[in-house]
Each structure stands twice: as structure tokens, then as C-alpha cells.
């Protein structure tokens, strides 16, 4: 998040015309962002006789119930569980690996440039090709692609560079004199990390965990060729798009979005409370 309290033009001056122009642009952009989303959230409550477009023919929870009915949608709940499990593992690994790497990158040393550009390359690589390469590799080795091997790996090539870049922003704001102070007070390297560096970086670290979780939870392009037999939720939805033409797709959309909301909302509240507690402690 972007910090700083006072920016730009002083508070007493009148707003320039650019403020209003950009304000209108921003408002229009928000409408553009939310318009279609609101349409599908609304349509997921479509009455049992309604279709995939307006008008609404009554209001019902029919389409949400359909998700959990045995039949065409039978795979959705189990795919959902798989996605959550995979996202949790991806998130944990991303945090550990990218925090360590971001701390390591604070020093320029031989070879660091290569790793950095590999991370950039891994981020910009057309997604499907990553899964293709991994799937091909597994085939050559005679291994079976599966959720916690190839699919996990394919997602890490996506979440790790993101986690790393986010951690760069966090680490840049970190004042190194805290570490020097810990050194001067005789802390060992481990004590310095455990009691000084990590607690200060914690809100940022939680942010990275949350980001990695949602990136993984929504990922389909990298995973599709590396997943093996058991689909994750986005892949299951992808498979449904061509066959399902009822509002049940929208109901799935509404449901998965609320899960994201729940996870991110909880994390935000945790971070916010953490920062407030810290502010109180500093205040004393």
C-alpha cells in the first residue's frame, strides 16, 4: 500500500481542474470495473425459470443449490477443496522462499543478476508454455503429473516472482539501522532475524501470503497442462463454460469471489490490528 499523509498540493488551496477531470475518469473506471461483476452477482440469484441475461425472473437460490447437487456439477466441491489446499501450500512456500530471497538480494553479489533476470523471465513467460514444459518434462521422465508435484511447481513459477517483487517493495522501506542496532546490542544473526527483521516486515509478509494465495486459487493457464487427472476449481469452471449455459456458472463465480473476500478481508483485519497495536506500543 502507498504511504505518506500529505502529498501534492497544500490543503488550503482550491482543487485544480485536473482533480475533477481525473476524479471523473477514476469514477468511470470504477463503474467499468464493477458493472459486469455486479451483473453476474445479481444474475446468480436468478429465479429458477430465468436465463443467463436480464430480466430477472424472480429471485432464488436455485443455482447455488445446483452446485452441490450430484450430477454435472459433482466435481465442483471437491475441486474447490483441492484448490484451497494447493493455494495454502503455494502461499506458504512463496512466503518462505521470497522473503529469504528478498533479504539476500539486498546485497549485490556475483550471480544475483542472473537469478533476478530468471525471476523476470519466469514472470513474463507465456503462462501456458510453463505448464507445457513441465508436463513435457514429466512425460520424458515417465512421471505422472499431479496436484502437489507438477501443478504446485507450475504455480510457483508464477507466485514466486510476484512474491519477490512485492517483498522488494517491503524490504526497500525497511530501515537497516534496526538491524545494525541489534548487531551493536550483540544479537546473533538468528536473534536479529527472529526478533527484529521479521516482526518489522510481518505486515508485508502477510500481504505476500495473501497475494500468493489468491494468485494460486485463480490460476488456470499454467496449471492446465501440469495438473494431471484431478482438476482445480478454475480448470473445472473452464471445462464447464462450453457446456453449461445456465446461471449456475454465475453462482460459482459469486461463491468463489466470496471465498476470496473472506480470506482477504480476514487478512486485512489482522494486518490492520497488528499495525494499530504497534502504533500504540510506539506511542507509549
Amino acid at each position: 500500500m502507498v504511504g505518506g499523509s500529505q502529498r501534492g498540493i497544500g490543503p488550503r488551496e482550491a482543487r485544480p481542474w485536473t482533480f475533477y477531470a481525473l476524479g471523473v475518469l477514476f469514477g468511470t473506471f470504477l463503474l467499468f470495473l464493477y458493472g459486469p461483476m455486479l451483473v453476474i452477482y445479481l444474475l446468480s440469484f436468478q429465479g429458477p425459470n430465468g436465463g443467463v441475461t436480464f430480466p430477472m425472473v424472480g429471485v432464488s437460490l436455485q443455482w447455488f443449490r445446483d452446485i452441490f447437487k450430484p450430477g454435472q456439477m459433482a466435481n465442483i466441491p471437491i475441486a474447490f477443496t483441492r484448490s484451497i489446499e494447493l493455494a495454502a501450500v503455494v502461499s506458504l512456500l512463496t512466503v518462505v522462499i521470497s522473503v529469504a530471497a528478498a533479504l539476500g538480494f539486498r546485497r549485490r553479489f556475483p550471480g544475483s543478476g542472473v537469478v533476478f533476470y530468471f525471476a523476470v523471465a519466469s514472470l513474463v513467460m507465456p503462462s501456458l508454455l510453463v505448464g507445457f514444459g513441465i508436463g513435457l518434462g514429466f512425460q520424458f521422465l515417465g512421471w505422472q503429473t499431479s496436484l502437489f508435484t507438477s501443478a504446485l511447481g507450475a504455480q510457483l513459477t508464477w507466485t514466486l516472482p510476484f512474491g519477490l517483487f512485492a517483498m522488494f517493495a517491503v524490504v526497500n522501506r525497511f530501515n537497516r539501522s534496526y538491524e545494525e542496532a541489534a548487531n551493536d546490542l550483540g544479537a546473533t544473526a538468528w536473534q536479529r532475524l527472529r526478533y527484529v527483521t521479521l516482526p518489522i516486515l510481518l505486515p508485508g509478509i502477510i500481504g505476500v501470503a495473501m497475494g500468493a494465495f489468491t494468485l494460486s486459487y485463480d490460476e488456470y493457464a499454467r496449471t492446465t497442462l501440469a495438473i494431471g487427472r484431478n482438476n482445480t476449481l478454475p480448470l473445472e469452471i473452464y471445462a464447464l463454460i462450453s457446456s453449461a449455459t445456465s446461471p449456475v456458472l454465475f453462482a460459482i463465480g459469486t461463491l468463489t469471489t466470496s471465498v476470496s473476500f473472506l480470506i482477504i478481508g480476514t487478512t486485512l483485519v489482522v494486518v490492520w490490528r497488528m499495525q494499530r497495536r504497534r502504533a500504540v506500543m510506539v506511542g507509549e
Partner: protein
Amino acid sequence: MNWIAKRSPPPLAAGGWGEGAAQTRVAPPPPIPPDQVRSRLLPRREGVSFRPSPWLISWFQLSPLSLVLLVLFALPTMLFLVVSFFDYDRVGIYPAFLLDNYRELLTTPTTLRVYISSLKFAVVVWAITLFLGFNIAWFLIFHIRSATTRTVLFLLCAIPFWTSGIIRTIAWIPFLGRNGAFNTILQSLDITSQPLTFLLFSDFAVVVTYVHLFTLLMVGPIANSMAKIDPALLEAARDAGASRWRTMVDVVIPLSKTGIALGSILVFTQVMGDYFVVKQMSGGQSASIVSMLSTEIQAMQYPPASANAMVLVVFVAIMVGCMMRIVDVRKELVK
């Protein structure tokens, strides 16, 4: 008792700095008596003298990342480089060194057409997202005065990002369709009498969906760069008589070019790598490079698919390389 004394700078190695430097060095301050030091941390144990070199520590910290990138990114890429030269038939693939896959790919007119079509989408979407991203970032960073409001507005931009790209793509279908929300609004406002049909399953729909999906990738990095600009610089520019336009061109754009470059790279590569949006939103009228490739993969034609993939990777690498030449992203990111 003497652990504090050990923290004082070690004597310089003879000849390391030369005579003059060693003589002018200020004498270290006298050690503080230990009873005046109150620390919760335990004193450093005597005799612990293992000090790995800083480079070694950094490499250790980077090793998990390097390992993952090597095994899961570099090796697979090498693999399809190798496979792209292989021979194949309907049954399987055979090790060989053939240039046929590349020759076939590069001489088919479809390849060129699809590349041009993808590139066209990439450029149009890049221009729109850059315009939107820069202006939105500017508004949030320089015009919004309270940090809380700014955070809330940022969150408002980020929330749709929490919904899966697939859902966000198909969300446009009931919105843009013939009987969709947008046409209904237009007709009820008497702007058009007939529903507009070019809205859905067209290049227009593809661009709209891309912009919807990727604008945040532009806003984030640019806002991050702009937030580092000292507002005093803008004031100084104004006091020196610069117009708003000049301030933007000569002060803000140069200082936020890292964000612009990063955002551009993200948007550009996302569009070039897409296979879902084009397939879903163009109604089969346009193809993308990767959708062409995924058809080959589904037909188990791995060597031509690999050749196709290599050409795309080289193409994207060149474009990204050009953008990275303009800005030293690493220097700006890792301060």
C-alpha cells in the same frame, strides 16, 4: 565481560589502507562498562568465530528461489527447445535434429496473421491501460490527500482482481450481449433503437475484457513509483514556473519510468500469452498465438508446438529486453 570490547572495529590489516589512512584514523571510543548496558539479548558466546562471507549468506538465502527457477522454469524451457527439433508422426515423437518444424511454422501465412493480430491487441491494450493506469495512479497519489481515503480507493481498484480471470471474462457476456445490460441501458435511455451487435464476440469485446483484466497491473507499479516522488519536487517545479504539463513530462514521467516499464511488461506479456479471452470473446473470429499452440498440444504434436513456443518466447524476450534496456528495473527495484 569483554564481549562489548570485541564489537569495536578490528585493527586494520597492515598495508590494507596504507600508512596515512591508518594514522589519521580516529581512535575507537572507550568501551562502555558492561553494568551500564541493559540488553534483553544474550551476549555473544565466547569462541563463536564462524563468520561466513556475506556473499555466501546471500547465496544461501537465494538458493531455494534459484533451485525452483532452475528446475521448474529453465529446464522445461530447455526441454522444449530440444523437442522443437524433434521428428514426429501420429504415434509419437523421435529424437532428431530437424529444422522442419520451424520452417513449416515460419512459412505458413497463418503464423504471420496470428502474430500480427496478437501484436495489434497487445499494442491497443497497452496504450489504453497505460493511459488509464498513469492517470489513476496520478489521481490516487497526488490528488488524494488523506492516506486512509487513498488506501480505500486502492482497495476498490483491487477487489475485482480477487475474482478469477475466467469469471471476470465471462462476466462481460451478459453485460455486452444483444439483450445484455449495456444494450438495455442504451435503449431505455433512447440512445439507440436497435441493440448494438458489435459489442459481444468481436475484437471490441476482446479489448474491453483485456483492459478490465489488466489495468490494475499498470496502476500498481506506476503508483508505487509515484509514491516515492518527493512532493516538494512538484512544488519546486511549479515555483520555477513550470506548467502542469511540463511538470508531468519533465519531472513525474522520468521519475516513474520504472513503474511504467514494469506495468508495460506485465500487460504486454499477459496479452501475448493469453489463449482464453480471445477464444471466448472474439466468437472464433480471432486466434491468438497460444490458442494456436494449445490446439497443437491437444493433438499431441509436441515438436511443432515446441517450435511455436520457442518462437513466441524469443519474440516476447526481445520485446521485454527492449523495455528493460530503457529502464534498469533491477537498480530501481532493489535499492
